């Protein structure tokens, strides 16, 4: 029974990793850009929510909703004024610019908020749990997983049911032809990064409520997100969720065997998948 419990916890943890990964997956899918500052942007989002909660006394969920337009604007501006300039066949400039951004963000947060670890207080919600068939499940992990499902369903709807989604897919397939049809790739890219930042805000909300965070933890979140994307297969959002779940289960099972092995087990699961299925479990895009 303890193993069933461990695996269930792992699956729910996977929801958090899928939230980390969804924004990364979206941006990569549309413009083949790997944002090395993705993890640090999640941490930035968490600090923004924390700031709103502390200053105004809002509930964290309302604070996250307030933070979303700001994060959207940040993503939009970042893409429009910085990242669009370095997109191209050469992968070096976007990688190095986002790497620089990661270092800048980490140290700006360090300067602004100090290295002390923080937490977004969620009141009784953080300890609440419900019992299903003899297994106690935390409300917070359940909520995280549900949010991941909502985000992925929402993104799929956006992609396949709206004109913006059609523009996303068209630009992803062939920016030159898409621009002949009256789509401005630069604007589409900016909107995509803006939407990715909204998902980042949701991820930040749960990151901040579930555990302590400090300015230095961004890169590790980026790695988990990246592993989830690769395991799932590039371009598949449901695959990303599966990837998150695999990392989550590997981590909780690893931790159950030896607490020091938690992170290592997640990485090893990733390497095993890379060995057996180099293109991920559910590959869609051919890159």
């Amino acid at each position, binding site marked *: 029974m303890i193993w069933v419990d461990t695996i269930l916890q792992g699956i729910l943890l996977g929801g958090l990793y899928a939230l980390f990964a969804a924004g990364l997956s979206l941006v*990569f899918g549309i413009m*083949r*850009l*790997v944002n*090395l500052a993705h993890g640090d942007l999640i941490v930035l989002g968490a600090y923004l929510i924390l700031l709103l909660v502390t200053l105004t006394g809002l509930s964290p969920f309302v604070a996250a909703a307030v933070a979303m337009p700001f994060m959207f604007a940040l993503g939009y501006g970042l893409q429009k004024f*910085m990242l669009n*300039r*370095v997109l191209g066949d050469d*992968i*070096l*400039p*976007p*990688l*190095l*610019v986002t*790497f*620089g*951004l*990661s*270092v*800048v963000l*980490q*140290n*700006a947060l*360090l*300067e602004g908020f100090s290295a002390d670890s923080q937490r977004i207080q969620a009141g009784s919600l953080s300890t609440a749990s419900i019992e299903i068939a003899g297994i106690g499940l935390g409300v917070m992990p359940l909520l995280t997983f549900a949010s991941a499902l909502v985000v992925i369903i929402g993104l799929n709807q956006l992609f396949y049911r709206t004109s913006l989604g059609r523009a996303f897919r068209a630009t992803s397939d062939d920016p030159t032809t898409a621009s002949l049809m009256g789509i401005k790739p630069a604007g589409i890219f900016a909107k995509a990064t803006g939407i990715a930042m909204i998902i980042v805000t949701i991820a930040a909300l749960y990151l901040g409520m579930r555990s302590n965070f400090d300015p230095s933890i961004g*890169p590790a979140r*980026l*790695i988990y997100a*990246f*592993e989830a994307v*690769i395991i799932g297969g590039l371009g598949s959002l449901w695959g990303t969720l599966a990837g998150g779940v695999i990392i989550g289960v590997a981590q909780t099972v690893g931790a159950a065997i030896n607490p*020091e092995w938690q*992170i*290592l087990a997640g*990485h*090893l699961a*990733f*390497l095993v998948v*890379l*060995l057996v299925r*180099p293109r991920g479990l559910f590959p869609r895009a051919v*890159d």
Partner: protein
Amino acid sequence: MSKLSSNYLVQTRTRASSISAIVALALVVLALALPAFASRSLIQDMFFILTMLVLAQFWNLLAGYGGLVSVGQQAFVGIGAYAMFGVVILLGFDPVASILIGGIAALVLAIPTAFFAFRLQGAYFAIGTWVIAEVVRLLVAQWKQVGGGTGTSLPRSATSDMWFTGAIETLFDVKSAAARDILAYWLAVVLAVATIAGIYWLLRTKRGLGLAAVRDNIEAAKSVGVDAVRMKWLVFLVSAFGTGLAGGLIYLQKARISPDAAFSLQDWTAYVIFIAVIGGIGTIEGPILGVLVFFILQSLLADYGSWYLMVLGLIGIAIMLFAPRGLWGLFSDRTGIELFPVRRRLTGGRLSATSSSSKEE
């Protein structure tokens, strides 16, 4: 190609490169003689500059010439350092000889790393190397005989009668700690010179030409018979070996190691990337200029802690946006000066329509 008239010469040498060769030789002699009159802190600064230069040259070989952007070079620094500590502590080897073991350990680690990371395309390669560096760090932290997660120091018995230190102590009349710094510094001079000379030699051979072709257009390079995969393996393994040697040497001087320090992304990859980016990716001169700028910035701003890193990051971003070929690229574009030219030029004779062929190599 024997039809080519003997009046024609294919050469890479320029006037600037001939001058720079003489200056470089003089600088090396000066660098080797430096401990005779320099203070210990200057020797330590020079050691830092030289080892960072070596790391930057190898990262530049990977990214600038091989098109392989690695964010996991700390894996090779760390494994080189830990292998050096391991054979000193467990087998009683001399630390100086153990640096070589560090390089070999990095080379061995590079084989599985490349096997995994080469499965990832382009940008994902970068994070793939990073994951592997994390895995190695977490595994090394489990290695209790070299201190586990908290780390350990080189045993006093190993550092006190290390090769050459006795001779240096009597030569310069210094204490053993200072003698160790001088020894490490000399080794760093040798390593830096060997690195630059080796990379320059590699780039001027037929392999180097193939490497540049793969970087510029992989499909075109393949179509004229360059084995792109072998090229990538070559630069990856060479870089790992050199980075491992540097790792062993850096921790010989530090004499104290911990997994978090030896596998630090910031110290061994972030700084190194900024050095190469600021100086200019894809040139040998770039990292040399970059490491000097980096050192000056660090001396000026180190007291400001995180502000310093923010400035460094912003400079890196600005350079990538506005001068992607770095400071050396700006200088070289305006003046046409290349200190380490790799371009082959056709000189001598008169160019006519009938003799349009030129011989490479």
